């Protein structure tokens, strides 16, 4: 039945936003994971979203609604911040450690945005469920 597509769409949105929340959690947790080698320093991860066209929702016209999916997770190219801390056990021969290129403020904003978007999708699902149940009660 075509009405259930709304659940697929809202569900895909929730899945995508939860991947985004996961990357935010990972970035925040590793915000202070320093390393002695700039190549090994943690890099901020961000998901890239993509609209899905009729793939999971085949058989309804040429373009029946669609959904969203995570195309991939990209790592930030920004250079890790070098700090001079010769006392740190992870410091390299010159006494530098490399902090991850995570911007904590950006991550917090991203978290709020993802959480709001997730709530939107939950709301869509709830409303659709109520409408569908009301339709089932039609004529009673």
């Amino acid at each position, binding site marked *: 039945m075509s009405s259930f597509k709304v659940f697929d*769409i809202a569900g895909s949105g929730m899945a995508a936003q939860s991947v985004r929340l996961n990357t935010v959690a990972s970035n925040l947790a590793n915000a202070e994971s320093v390393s002695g080698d700039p190549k090994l320093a943690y890099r901020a991860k961000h998901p890239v979203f993509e609209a899905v066209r009729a793939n999971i929702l085949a058989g309804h016209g040429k373009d029946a609604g669609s959904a969203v999916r995570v195309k991939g997770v990209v790592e930030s190219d920004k250079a890790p911040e070098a700090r001079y801390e010769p006392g740190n056990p992870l410091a390299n021969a010159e006494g530098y450690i490399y902090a991850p290129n995570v911007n904590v403020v950006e991550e917090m904003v991203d978290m709020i945005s993802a959480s709001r978007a997730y709530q939107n999708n939950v709301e869509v699902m709830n409303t659709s469920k109520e*409408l569908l149940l009301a339709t089932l009660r039609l004529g009673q």
Partner: protein
Amino acid sequence: MILDLDKFLGVHANALKLHERRTELLANNLANADTPGFKARDLDFRSAMAAATGPAANAGQQVTHYAGQGDSGNLQSGDLSPGSTEAFIKYRTPLAPSLDGNTVDAQLEQSAFAENAVRYQATLSLLSTQIRTLMTAITGQ
């Protein structure tokens, strides 16, 4: 046939299908609120309803000002096959375009979704009334 059920239910059955299609589109817009390059879409309800009801629809329930433009060939009266509504799906004109090419305005979509849900429920209660009328006529009670 003495009683044509489709005719009896009138525009409401068609309206319900269109509202359902609009629910899907708006849900999709909200799901793609953060997708780069995604263009928000919505159903041109007035035109879709006019096409679904058709120029030769029931008297008194007819949608006026039927323009009849576009592909009237596959849009016959009461034709609401899945493909027929696609012609009435339009891209939204963004109020505040973002840098990544996304044209979804979450607040706008949310209010449209709420409005659509209320209209769906209104159509449902109208349909319910029609069915109750029919039941009264059948049972005679």
